[in-house]
C-alpha cells in the first residue's frame, strides 16, 4: 500500500485578476521507504502540490482532489487539530531557504524541542538528549553549544542541517524536501543530499525530493515525476526516465543537461512556462514542443499507460506503436 496517494489534485489561487490554477489534476504516489523526485521548472506547481498535502497553503488557495490519503488517512476531511497532530510528526517538510525558514528570535535548540514537546511525551531531559542525538545524526559538531545558537550565528548549510534535524525529530514516515539544496553552495549541496539519502536509508522513511536539478534526481531518486505548468507530464523510474523519456518535455530537459551535450552549444527549450493569462488550449507544452502539430494545439492530451511513463502527450516519444493510447 502506498504511503501517500493523491489522485487528481488541483489547487486554484484566487488572485486579483481572477483564479489561477497552480496545480492541475496531479497524481502522486509514494511507497514506504521510497524516494520520489518531483522535477520541473519554476512555476510548475511542485511546491504548491506538496504544501497542499501538508495543508500549509494560504487561505486564498482552493484545494480539490479525488483522493488524498496518507497511510490510509484521508487528508481532505481531516480537522485542523488532527492535521496538526500529523504534520511535523508523521509527515514533515523542509524548505528551500534555511536562513529564513528558522525563527530569528529563538535558539535552534528551542525550535527543535518545540516539535518534540508537541508530538512526543518526552520530558525535558529526554528532549535535550534527543536534540543532541539529532544534531549528531545530521552532522553538526559540538551539539551542546550549537543547540544554544541562534539561526543568524550559523551558516546556511548548518541551518539546513538544523531544519533536517527538526523535520526528522519525531521520526516521520514521509519527509518532503522542497528544493533543500537550491539556496546552498555547490559544495554543501552534495553534503546535504548525502545526508538526506543517508537518513532515508537509516530510518526507512519515504522521501519526496522537489528539485529542478536533473543531476540531483539521477543521484538520489528511485522514481521521478516531471511536472510542467501545474500538470504531471511523466512518471517513471529513474533509470527508465533517463534511458527512454516519453514526454518531449522530459526529453528536452535531459538534452539540456551539460553532461549529455554532444555539441558545443547546449540545447535549450525555447519560450517560458505559460502563466496565468497565456495558457494555451490543447497541450500546455505545445507552444514550446518541436513535435507539436494542430492536434496538440487544439485537443488536451490523454494520459498514456504506465509502460509509456503515464506521459501526458498525444505523440509520446520512444513508443512502440501498439502501446499508445488514442
Amino acid at each position: 500500500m502506498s504511503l501517500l496517494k493523491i489522485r487528481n489534485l488541483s489547487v486554484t489561487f484566487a488572485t486579483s485578476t481572477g483564479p489561477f490554477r497552480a496545480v492541475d489534476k496531479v497524481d502522486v504516489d509514494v511507497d514506504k521507504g521510497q524516494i520520489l523526485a518531483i522535477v520541473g521548472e519554476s512555476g510548475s506547481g511542485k511546491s504548491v502540490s506538496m504544501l497542499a498535502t501538508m495543508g500549509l497553503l494560504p487561505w486564498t488557495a482552493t484545494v480539490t482532489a479525488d483522493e488524498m490519503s496518507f497511510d490510509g488517512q484521508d487528508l481532505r476531511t481531516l480537522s485542523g487539530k488532527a492535521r496538526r497532530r500529523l504534520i511535523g510528526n508523521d509527515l514533515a517538510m523542509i524548505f528551500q531557504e534555511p536562513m529564513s525558514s528558522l525563527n530569528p528570535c529563538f535558539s535552534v535548540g528551542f525550535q527543535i524541542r518545540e516539535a518534540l514537546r508537541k508530538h512526543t511525551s518526552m520530558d525535558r531531559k529526554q528532549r535535550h538528549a534527543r536534540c543532541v542525538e539529532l544534531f549528531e545524526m545530521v552532522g553538526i559538531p559540538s551539539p551542546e553549544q550549537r543547540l544554544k545558537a541562534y539561526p543568524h550565528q550559523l551558516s546556511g548549510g548548518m541551518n539546513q542541517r538544523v531544519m533536517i534535524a527538526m523535520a526528522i525529530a519525531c521520526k516521520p514516515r514521509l519527509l518532503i524536501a522542497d528544493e533543500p539544496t537550491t539556496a546552498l553552495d555547490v559544495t554543501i549541496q552534495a553534503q546535504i543530499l548525502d545526508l538526506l539519502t543517508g537518513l532515508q536509508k537509516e530510518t526507512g522513511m519515504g522521501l519526496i525530493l522537489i528539485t529542478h536539478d536533473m543531476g540531483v534526481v539521477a543521484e538520489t531518486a528511485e522514481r521521478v515525476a516531471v511536472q510542467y505548468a501545474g500538470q504531471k507530464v511523466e512518471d517513471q523510474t529513474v533509470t527508465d526516465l533517463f534511458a527512454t523519456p516519453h514526454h518531449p518535455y522530459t526529453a528536452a530537459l535531459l538534452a539540456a543537461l551539460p553532461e549529455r551535450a554532444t555539441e558545443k552549444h547546449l540545447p535549450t527549450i525555447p519560450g517560458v512556462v505559460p502563466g496565468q493569462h497565456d495558457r494555451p488550449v490543447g497541450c500546455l507544452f505545445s507552444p514550446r514542443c518541436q513535435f507539436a502539430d494542430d492536434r496538440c494545439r487544439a485537443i488536451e492530451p490523454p494520459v498514456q499507460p504506465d509502460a509509456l511513463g503515464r506521459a501526458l502527450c498525444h505523440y509520446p516519444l520512444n513508443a512502440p506503436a501498439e502501446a499508445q493510447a488514442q
Partner: protein
Amino acid sequence: MLKFFLSRLGTFIPTFFGVTLISFAFIRVLPGDPIIVMAGERGMSQERYEALRAQYGFDQPIWKQFWDYFTGILQGDLGNSFVTNRPVWDEFFSLFPATLELSICAIIIATCLGLPAGVIAAVYRGKFLDRFFMSTALIGYSMPIFWWALLLIIVFSGNLGWTPVSGRIGLLYFFEDTTGFMLIDSLLSGQSGAFRSAVSHLILPSIVLATIPLAVIARQTRSAMLEVLSEDYIRTARAKGLSPERVNGVHALRNAMIPVITVIGLSVGTLLAGAILTETIFSWPGIGKWMVDSIFRRDYPVVQGGLLMIAVIVMIVNLLVDLTYGLINPKIRSR
C-alpha cells in the same frame, strides 16, 4: 550586551548637550521679558528693572548666561523658579509622580487592548473583526482629545455619576505624600475607601490619554503581524504542527514586537512629556499643566529645566526600548 549598552549611552552625551542648548534658546526666542511679567500690572521703575536684571544675570552676555546655566546643570542645579522661588528640581519631582502614574496607567491600557486587537485584526485580515478593530482605531485616533474627554465626563460623571470629574482623590481623604503615587499612598494611608477613590479618579483620564496610543499600537501591531505572518519561519512553525495560537502568539508576535515596542516607547515619551490637554481638562496636577503655565509666565528656569528633564526621561525610555530590542531578537544585539 555591555558594549551595546555603552554605545547607546555614548549617543546620550551629544543629545544631552543639544537639548540644554535648545531649551535655553527656545524660551529666549519667545517674545516677552520675564522681569516685566514679574512686575505685573503695576510696572516698575527703571532702576528696579536694572537691579532685577542684574540679579537674575540677564545683563550678562548670552554665552555667559548659557555657560552659567550649563555648569549649573552639571552640578545638579536647575535654578529656582522665578514665581515660587523653589528649586526647579523639587518642583519637577513633586509633580512628576502624578504624570507618571497617569502615563503608566494609560500605556498599560493602550498596550493591553491595542496589542491583542492588532494581533486579532492581522490573523482575521479582511474579515469583520479586522474591519471593526481598525475602523474603531481610526476613529479613536482622529477624535479631538478634548471633545472625547468632555464626552466621557458628561456620560460617566454627569449622567451616570460613576466617576468623579477632576482631581486625583476625593476631598474626604487626606494623607502624606510618601511616594507621590496616589494609588500607593492611598493604600499606605490605610483609610477605607481611599484607594477606591484614587482608582475612580484615575479611570477617565487614563482612558482619554490611552486613546491615541491605543489606536497607534493596534494599527502598528496589525501591520507588523501581517508582514511577519508571510515569513518563511511562520510556515516552518506551522509545518511543525503547532497550534495557531502558538504560531501567532509566540512565533509571529515576538518578531512583530520590534516595531510595536518602538511605538510604545515613543508613546511613553509623549505621554510623560505631559499630557497637556488631558491634565488641564481633568485638573490633574502633573508636569504638562505646570510647563504650560510656566511658559505663559516666562518662568525661564522652569521651562528650561522642565524641558531638559522631560528630554532626559524620553532619552532614558528610548534607551530602554533599544535594550529590549536586543532581548527580543538576538540578531539585533549582535549588530
